[in-house]
């Protein structure tokens, strides 16, 4: 925790960012997501699927798991839950939202991110530590990473293959909205599931809504994860929240500039 505390030295106790974590029936990774948020220096606020408001949080994490048992399609039922109406409204007004694994599936099903996640090409549930390249470091969730940093975080899913129409993929590439791409050589590296253009994670056009299949919340310290690379996402959003709070009204008008000027503190997760 001392190492982590050093990373959060810019964050004062009085204005500790509050980041919500939603629990649906069947969510698994809300506890780890909340721990990752706390370890990165923010306050984790539990949010319940049946609630209709977001308790005034500064950002929301939609964690992984098997919401509603993956009935119908992974994320399809959760996307219609009462809390998601609040998330969609708030996201459209600029609230940062991160979807991890099932959370990414939910954001796609809710129409907050384009494309869909379908069954892995090899039909297998894949659980392994996965190398990713950070393709865009100007989004709200990736500003702490060095450009083109390669990070190692766990992935575990059966429906993780990202697909979208060619025109959508071109648009994502052209606008720099591919945040993470599968990389690495060797038998258990590279693209694990046939995801189009090796895409592991994407963002909205303004960089505030992001989703990825691998699990940054499981890679926050060397004791329990392969690296602490995952902290970078939770620290990045706090930089943005801090800047946005300081700039208050200007933040809504100049969001594009905010992400670019966010303080680059100690970079979490660059492979040396």
């Amino acid at each position, binding site marked *: 925790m001392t190492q982590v505390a050093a990373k959060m030295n810019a964050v004062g106790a009085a204005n500790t960012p509050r980041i919500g974590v939603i629990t649906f029936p069947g969510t698994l990774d809300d506890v780890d997501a909340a721990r990752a948020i706390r370890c990165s220096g923010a306050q984790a606020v539990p949010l319940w699927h049946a609630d209709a408001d977001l308790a005034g949080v500064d950002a929301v994490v939609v964690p992984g798991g098997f919401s509603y048992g993956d009935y119908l399609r992974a994320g399809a039922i959760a996307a219609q839950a009462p809390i998601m109406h609040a998330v969609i409204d708030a996201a459209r007004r600029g609230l940062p939202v991160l979807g991890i694994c099932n959370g990414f599936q939910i954001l796609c099903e809710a129409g907050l991110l384009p494309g*869909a996640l379908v*069954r892995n090409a*090899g*039909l297998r549930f894949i659980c392994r530590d996965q190398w990713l390249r950070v393709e865009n470091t100007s989004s709200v969730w990736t500003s702490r990473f060095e450009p083109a940093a390669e990070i190692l975080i766990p992935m575990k899913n059966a429906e993780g293959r990202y697909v979208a*129409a060619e025109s959508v993929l071109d648009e994502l590439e052209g606008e720099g909205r591919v945040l993470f791409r599968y990389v690495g050589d060797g038998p258990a590296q590279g693209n694990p599931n*046939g995801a189009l253009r090796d895409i592991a994670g994407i963002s909205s056009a303004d960089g505030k809504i992001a989703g990825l299949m691998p699990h940054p919340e499981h890679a926050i310290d060397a004791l329990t994860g392969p690296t602490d690379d995952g902290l970078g996402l939770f620290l990045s959003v706090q930089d943005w929240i801090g800047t946005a709070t300081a700039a208050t009204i200007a933040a809504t008008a100049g969001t594009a500039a905010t992400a670019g000027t966010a303080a680059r503190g100690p970079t979490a997760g660059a492979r040396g």
Partner: protein
Amino acid sequence: MARVAVDVVIKPEILDPQGKAILAALKRIGQQGVSAVRQGKHFDLEVDDSVSDADLEEIAGHLLANPVIESWTVTRVAQETVGAGSEDAR
């Protein structure tokens, strides 16, 4: 009340690994003549008379199917023929 059938299939351009696995299993049970399988979903809905065709499109396109990866057909099953026919007795 009316009965409505909604069939959902993965779009042709989307890889269907489950269909491929089923095809491989068909070969193993000796069915060499099958050249392709696409797996989909079938929904039977009981709807009252207030549900319009537009409502059914909303139901199918907004929840039962994901338009990004799936296509669907909505079929109203004529209640009279079903009620009197063999399907209910089955």
